[in-house]
């Protein structure tokens, strides 16, 4: 077999240039390079952040966020050299790279429950991340940072000024607390650290712009945390800056106007004062270079004097106490207290800051008598202050410049101890008051008063009184009374004619003469031992009063009164006024008769005669006779006593009662009426009309007698009598009599004291009587009597009688207005002088003693059962008294008052039993300690409250964000449901794959 012709396979000429398929790997290279470049390009600088711990940091996962935008990822977590720190290597975004300069801060955000509240709660779900903070200005790049332990309170880049406050103690000012200016929040406390030496606490404070412009060297900061409650020498002060700072604590600042403000640099250190007042007080104290310090040694106790207490001069604070210590005087080996004070020259008005000037001023003042003295600033707390007082009388002294450590100011003793002593005394007195007894008496008194006031009869009185008033009104309106003015005018005309007669004008002179005579008679009485007789008579009367029969009198008298009431109610008696009116009318007619008009002349003459008679020696012996008559009367009374006259009297009264009750007596009014009718007939008779003429004639003869020359001598006699009176007044005996008044008063007082001892049981008896049902019946009787009286008042006759009486009275007044009548008082004065002398003699006879004894008897009488029985008789009507007590409203007030009194009495008894004085003293002692404790507690409270407040606030926010209906919630629920389904499906798939791996290839 031949080989077929060799086929010529034309190999096509390979092309000179490579296949286009090579574009594919080139493209692949470009894609790869592009990917790599993209990855590398998005990769920013790598920085290292040093942490104390790597809590929650995971390499490759933990992100770095700036304003909640992810700007980096932790790539590696490793230790620093020496294992001191954890270094997180972070790949940052290129965009933020330029800003990662020295001011960048990093901290780990994780759930944090602290004093400031709960933060970072969202990281529970999303995982811990690193938060970065930096300002918006690019700076020199840095690659190594140290993380903050806690998030900074002020975001980096916030405009403002950061300053430092230094305080001696941390107080309640906490991190995050607001800084206020005029109560507006302008800053925040960022940190609170102890200084390196531990001597002070420093707060880093950020003041936001533009408020940081307020800061200057004149600015003062003070703590406004909580309640500033202080008791000092200036009294009590309470200051609250704001409710917010009460809860969170806080600091305030303000400017001191007196200091020239200079600008400050960030980081300026201010002092933080405990309070606004302290900040103001310390304005001058700050200038310590100009202060002058002195030592004062006080002799007494310095308890209550504390550092910071003011030093005052005439009420103005000129300095303050720096320290109070004790030393042993090396010379005398005695215990001394040392009070170191700082005097501030500006407070004294010294402008020169050189201490020498201040010392010179004080030296001068001390030489002129200025001394240091302890004074009480506040009685309640017992706080003291140092008072510089002017004591011009103090011994000369000077400032002791040799004294160590500072010059010594001389002092004087204080008077605080005396004050305390007197206060204690007052408390003792108050404690000893018999409050319980007083309250018991008051309660008993109120109970009795309650019973009386509540009685029906007492309530009936107003009604009765109203009825009487009605009657009076009717009387005033009656035609008879309306008519009376006319009659009165007529009567007055007559009377005036009578009065205007010259004869009557002389009458007063005669009266004066008669009074002179009377005085003479009184003088006689005095000399005649009448006083002694009166005394004896009183003694007799006392015996009589003590007799049993006399004690029976009240019962009889009561029956008599009842009868009398019946009598008054008798119509006959009530007819009497009518009759009396008629009689008066007749009398008016008589007076108007011409005969009566002449009577005054005659009367004057008669008076003159009377005086002549009075001057008669026989009349002068009359007092002596009267004295003897009184003696006889005494004897008679003594006899009466012996003869049981009181019994007889009682019997007599009984008889009188019988008479009164007798039907015959009942007819008496008719008889009286008849008699009056007769009198009227008589008055109207012709004979009586003639009578004035007779009188007139008689008076004429009397005047003739008076016209006698002897009668003319009367004025001379009067003058002589007055001279005698003056001589008597000038008499030394009168002076001694006046001197005798003093012992008299003393005696009266002694007597009164005796009376008092006896009055107490008497009062007890009186109360028993008041309690007696009989006494309560009395109002009923009174009511009945008033009813009768009203009936009487209703009588027309009585109404006209009133008119008549008024007219008569007016006439009488005209007579009294006569000039001569005015001499009478002088004579009366003389008569009174005599009466006083008589009383003096009475005193000598121990009349008071007898009176006392008489009162004792009266008391015995009051104790008598008979008297009580008298009261018992009226019991029926007064029984209703208690019904009023039951009436609504009426009883409430008295009962309540009584209960209140009882409770008060119990309370007082309790107080006393617990020794109120000692308790008060102890309580006052404890007040100061309690106040301090309260102050501390109050200061601590805001911190606690602030924590609680923040915790709850955060919890609220969280709950609000997780609340039902939020989108997240809905999404989460839906997602979780879907995940569950998916997970179930994946699980099934995985199980299947594990069991049968080939299903991946061949399918299910």
């Amino acid at each position, binding site marked *: 077999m031949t080989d*077929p*012709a*060799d*086929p*010529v*396979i*034309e*190999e*096509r000429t*390979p*092309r000179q240039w*490579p*296949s286009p*398929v*090579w*574009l*594919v*790997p080139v*493209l*692949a*290279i470009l*894609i*790869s390079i592009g*990917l*790599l470049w993209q*990855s590398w390009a998005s990769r920013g600088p790598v920085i290292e952040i040093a942490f104390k711990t790597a809590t929650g940091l995971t390499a490759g*996962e933990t992100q770095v966020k700036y304003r909640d935008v992810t700007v980096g990822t932790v790539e590696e977590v490793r230790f620093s050299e020496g294992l001191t720190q954890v270094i997180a290597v972070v790949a940052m975004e290129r965009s933020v790279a330029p800003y990662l300069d020295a001011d960048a801060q990093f901290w780990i955000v994780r759930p944090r429950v602290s004093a400031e509240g709960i933060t970072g709660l969202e990281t529970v*779900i*999303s*995982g811990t991340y690193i938060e970065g903070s930096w300002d918006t200005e690019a700076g020199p790049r840095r690659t190594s940072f140290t993380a903050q332990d806690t998030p900074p309170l002020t975001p980096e880049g916030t405009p403002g000024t950061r300053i430092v406050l230094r305080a001696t103690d941390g107080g309640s000012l906490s991190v995050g607390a607001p800084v206020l200016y005029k109560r507006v929040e302008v800053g925040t406390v960022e940190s609170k650290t102890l200084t390196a030496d531990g001597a002070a606490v420093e707060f880093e404070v950020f003041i936001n712009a533009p408020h940081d412009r307020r800061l200057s060297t004149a600015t003062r900061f003070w703590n406004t945390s909580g309640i500033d409650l202080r008791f000092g020498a200036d009294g009590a002060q309470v200051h609250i800056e704001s409710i917010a700072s009460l809860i969170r604590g806080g600091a305030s600042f303000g400017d001191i106007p007196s200091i020239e403000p200079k600008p400050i640099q960030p980081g300026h250190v201010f002092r933080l004062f405990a309070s606004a007042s302290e900040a103001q007080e310390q304005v001058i104290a700050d200038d310590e270079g100009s202060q002058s310090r002195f030592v004062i040694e006080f002799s007494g106790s310095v308890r209550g004097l504390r550092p910071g207490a003011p030093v005052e001069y005439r009420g103005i604070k000129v300095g303050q106490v720096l320290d109070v210590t004790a030393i042993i005087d090396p010379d005398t080996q005695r215990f001394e207290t040392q009070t170191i004070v700082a005097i501030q020259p500006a407070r004294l008005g010294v402008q020169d800051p050189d201490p020498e000037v201040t010392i010179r001023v004080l030296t001068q003042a001390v030489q002129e008598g200025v001394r240091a003295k302890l004074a009480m600033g506040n009685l309640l707390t017992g706080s003291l202050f140092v008072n510089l007082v002017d004591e011009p009388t103090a011994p000369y002294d000077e400032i002791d410049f040799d004294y160590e450590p500072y010059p010594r100011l001389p002092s004087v003793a204080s008077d605080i101890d005396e004050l305390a002593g007197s206060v204690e005394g007052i408390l003792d007195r108050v404690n000893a008051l018999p409050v319980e007894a007083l309250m018991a008496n008051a309660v008993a008194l109120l109970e009795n008063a309650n019973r009386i006031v509540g009685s029906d009869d007492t309530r009936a009185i107003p009604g009765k009184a109203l009825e009487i008033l009605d009657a009076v009104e009717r009387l005033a309106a009656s035609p008879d009374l309306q008519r009376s003015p006319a009659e009165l005018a007529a009567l007055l005309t007559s009377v005036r004619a009578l009065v205007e007669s010259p004869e009557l004008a002389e009458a007063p002179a005669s009266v004066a003469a008669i009074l002179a005579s009377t005085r003479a008679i009184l003088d006689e009485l005095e000399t005649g031992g009448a006083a002694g007789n009166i005394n004896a008579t009183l003694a007799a009367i006392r015996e009589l009063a003590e007799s049993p029969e006399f004690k029976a009198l009240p019962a009889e008298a009561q029956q008599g009164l009842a009868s009398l009431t019946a009598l008054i109610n008798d119509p006959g008696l009530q007819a009497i006024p009518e009759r009396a009116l008629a009689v008066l009318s007749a009398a008016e007619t008589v007076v108007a008769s011409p005969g009566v008009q002449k009577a005054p002349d005659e009367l004057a003459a008669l008076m003159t005669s009377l005086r002549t008679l009075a001057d008669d020696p026989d009349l002068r012996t009359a007092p002596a006779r009267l004295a003897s008559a009184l003696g006889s009367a005494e004897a008679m009374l003594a006899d009466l006593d012996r003869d049981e006259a009181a019994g007889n009297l009682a019997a007599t009264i009984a008889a009188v009662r019988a008479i009164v009750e007798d039907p015959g007596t009942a007819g008496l009014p008719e008889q009286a009426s008849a008699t009056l009718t007769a009198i009227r007939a008589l008055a109207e008779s012709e004979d009586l009309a003639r009578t004035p003429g007779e009188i007139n004639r008689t008076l004429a003869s009397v005047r003739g007698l008076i016209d006698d020359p002897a009668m003319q001598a009367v004025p001379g006699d009067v003058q002589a009598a007055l001279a005698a009176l003056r001589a008597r007044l000038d008499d030394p005996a009168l002076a001694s009599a006046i001197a005798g008044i003093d012992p008299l008063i003393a005696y009266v007082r002694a007597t009164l004291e005796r009376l008092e001892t006896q009055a107490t049981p008497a009062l007890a008896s009186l109360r028993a009587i008041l309690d007696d049902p009989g006494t309560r019946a009395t109002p009923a009787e009174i009511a009945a009597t008033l009813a009768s009286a009203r009936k009487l008042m209703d009588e027309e006759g009585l109404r006209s009688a009133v008119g008549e009486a008024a007219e008569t009275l007016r006439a009488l007044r005209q007579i009294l207005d006569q000039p001569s009548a005015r001499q009478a008082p002088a004579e009366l004065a003389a008569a009174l002088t005599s009466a006083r002398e008589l009383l003096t003699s009475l005193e000598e006879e121990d009349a008071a003693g007898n009176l006392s004894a008489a009162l004792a008897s009266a008391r015995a009488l009051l104790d008598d059962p008979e008297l009580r029985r008298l009261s018992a008789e009226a019991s029926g009507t007064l029984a209703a008294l208690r019904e009023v007590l039951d009436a609504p409203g009426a009883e409430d007030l008295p009962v309540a008052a009584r209960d209140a009194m009882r409770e008060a009495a119990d309370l007082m008894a309790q107080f006393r039993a617990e020794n109120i004085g000692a308790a008060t003293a102890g309580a006052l002692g404890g007040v100061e300690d309690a106040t301090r404790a309260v102050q501390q507690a109050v200061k601590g409270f805001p911190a606690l409250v602030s924590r609680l407040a923040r915790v709850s606030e955060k919890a609220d926010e969280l709950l609000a964000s997780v609340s039902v209906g939020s989108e*997240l919630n809905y*999404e*989460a629920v839906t*997602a*979780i449901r*879907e*995940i569950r389904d*998916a997970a179930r499906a994946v699980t099934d798939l*995985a199980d299947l*794959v*594990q069991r049968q*791996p080939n299903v*991946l*290839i061949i399918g299910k």
Partner: protein
Amino acid sequence: MTAVLTARAAGLVACTTCGRAAPPMERLCLRCGERLHSRPPNGLQPVWGWLAAGVILYIPANIFPMLVTRSLGHNDPSTIVGGVIELVHIGSYGVAAIVFFASVIIPIAKFLAIGYLGWIVRRGERLEPHRLRHLYEVVEYIGRWSMIDIFVVAILSALVQLGFVASLSPGPAAACFALSVAFTMLAARAFDPRLIWDRIGELE
């Protein structure tokens, strides 16, 4: 070894699609319309080109994350090897083996196999054509299974889209890996197995 008359030796051109032998002058197969050429006009250049592209893209496919798991705001990107290691850590050795085999062993084996075939048909001294033929067929057959990773990623990405709580998304490596697999498949396809036999004649 007996010489075998090949189409080429017979002056014919075999259609690579339908196997019809055609006279050399024929440009297109009369049966199936396929372009006819005795040997690839550019020789092995397409093979090398696709292979290079596949290898190049295989690098970023392993560097960049294949799958980004986002769970509750927490990103967890994982590469192919990282995912295998993670599966081993959680104890799913079977799945880890499958993923490792499909995503690492097979692609690399393919690179090596295609490179070896390309190299051996040009310069190989000792040829064992039947073995080479087996190798080529295995490569062709198994190459598509490397896409299983891509399928998983694609399916999971489509399924697990739970918003904030959990979501899966393919990373840049997925595209690279898919392209790499595709290119290697094209490389295998560009290799003309007839070249294996051409050398036999030369060797004899």
